[in-house]
């Protein structure tokens, strides 16, 4: 009782042990290749091209409603798209458990849109959903509509492109996270009288939640920096003038890197807020063995 434990143990108890070395390569890597360039960019954002105070670039951004609104515009696109991707992936992935014929094919098909890339998606949406595209043609020839519906070069075009590129990814992740949950737990719940829905809500979902949080974060981050599709299938001057477009214009049309940096920092900060909220929520969830892998 009196003997105190070796400092090894006391450190290990606080989480400091040899395993921390595994963090080293990634940390060094990020420090060397990211932190310096990033700090440079950060400091650049405080050096306005046209003079003014340290914060001039930020004031300029927030002082201009046209610029400021891009934050809301982006969130309005990114949040629903990321949410939809994750929420749609869950029931489908859930259905893909168990064994049935054609499962592998179906999985592959659902994952395949990952390969499409922004350009093909954009071209495809323009072709397919365009006023004389197949979609409108079918609807017109079925006399469901009088005039072609416009689904491109506006909010919906961007939204669809985010779903097409984001959903398969969310699906792949959710499916994989789901595969790590021991099906016995659900059966145990069944013997306790839980219906399908209850089992899902009370057992599977909570165990899946940390993975869902991560999936949401990743798809959100991807959606938030949507840029090419905002231009290609959106209305880049208006309803889909996303913040990365503002940064892009500053950097590559006005060649004001300082201002562009400032906008990009704001963009990162907004994302960070969402990410931190999700991570805080995640840290309150149960994260740990889900039985499936041991």
């Amino acid at each position, binding site marked *: 009782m009196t003997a105190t434990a070796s400092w090894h143990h006391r450190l290990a108890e606080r989480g400091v042990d040899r395993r921390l070395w595994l963090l080293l390569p*990634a940390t060094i890597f990020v420090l060397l290749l990211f932190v310096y360039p990033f700090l440079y960019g950060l400091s650049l954002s405080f050096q306005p091209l046209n003079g003014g105070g340290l914060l001039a670039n930020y004031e300029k951004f927030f002082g201009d409603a046209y610029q400021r609104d891009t934050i809301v515009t982006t969130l309005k696109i990114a949040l629903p798209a990321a949410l939809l991707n994750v929420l749609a992936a869950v029931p489908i992935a859930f259905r893909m*458990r168990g064994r049935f014929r054609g499962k592998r094919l179906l999985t592959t098909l659902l994952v395949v849109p990952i390969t499409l890339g922004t350009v093909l998606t954009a071209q495809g949406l323009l072709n397919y959903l365009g006023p004389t595209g197949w979609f409108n043609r079918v609807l017109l020839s079925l006399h469901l509509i009088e005039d072609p519906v416009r689904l491109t070069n506006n909010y919906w075009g961007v939204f669809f492109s985010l779903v097409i590129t984001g959903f398969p990814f969310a699906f792949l992740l959710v*499916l994989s996270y789901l595969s790590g949950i021991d099906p016995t737990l659900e059966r145990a719940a069944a013997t306790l009288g839980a219906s399908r829905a209850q089992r899902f809500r009370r057992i599977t979902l909570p165990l899946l939640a940390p993975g869902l949080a*991560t999936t949401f974060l990743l798809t959100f981050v991807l959606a938030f920096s949507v840029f090419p599709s905002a231009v290609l299938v959106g209305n880049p001057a208006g309803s889909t003038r996303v913040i990365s477009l503002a940064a892009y214009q500053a950097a590559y049309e006005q060649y004001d*890197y300082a201002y562009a940096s400032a906008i990009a920092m704001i963009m990162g900060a907004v994302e960070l807020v969402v990410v931190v909220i999700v991570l805080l929520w995640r840290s309150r969830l149960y994260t740990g063995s889900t039985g499936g892998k041991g």
Partner: protein
Amino acid sequence: MSNRSIRATPTAWFIWAAVVFFFVNLAGVVGSVLVSSFGQKWFDTWVPSGFTTQWYGDAWREFGLLQVISVTLLASGLVVALSVLVGAPAAYVLARQNFPGKRLVYLTFLLPILMPPITYGIPLATVLYKFGFAGHLSGVVLANLVPSVPFVILTMTPFIEQVDPRIESAARMLGANTRAVFLKILAPLLVPGLLASAILVLVRTVGMFELTFLTAGPDSQTLVVALYYSMSAAGIRAQQSVDAMAVMYTAMMLVLLVVALRFVNPTQLVARVKEEPPE
């Protein structure tokens, strides 16, 4: 007994209907590009007025795509491999351990994902040029690792959390060192996670225009640079040739994906034997 997993409850019908709807439209999206890329002229009609492979030939010659594609494959392969090698151990620590300063470390790993390349691309390229990496494949690989490593970390963490630590303890008791634990125990158990994050990194790397462009030399351009060029560069090009480029881009990714899926199954359940067997 009938198969319970696809038993037709109303929700199931709804979900499968949604999936079918998604696929039909997806087929429309992809198909329209594919058809157009082989089309001669396509005005106000259901299908083009003639078919040709000329656009592919043109693009192939114009960009020397053989070289571009092989560079792309090499670069993305390297990025995927390296980011998994560097990222997975870090994810492991972040999943398993609570240590002082964890939040700070986590934030540092998050930032490269959150920050658009505009903020750090040019200084990063400068650094890489200074040390003689940029202008080559190595520069492209290093630059692309910056957002890729954190992506691997972020995706892998929940997977590692799912693995029962006692399995690892058992391996250690049997004399497995950290390397062996990773290779023989964690890696097979994490296959779905590794696959998912590798695919993510692959997609991002192949599609990463900015960092690649800033650090590529004349012989280390990747397909996406050519694609973006054909799509947005000044000048006139036939719609079909952009479509052809996009189709080639997708085809390449598709080949990679199918190869990956051939070797590992994303639904690989470690607990698969506990699944209901098929009847």
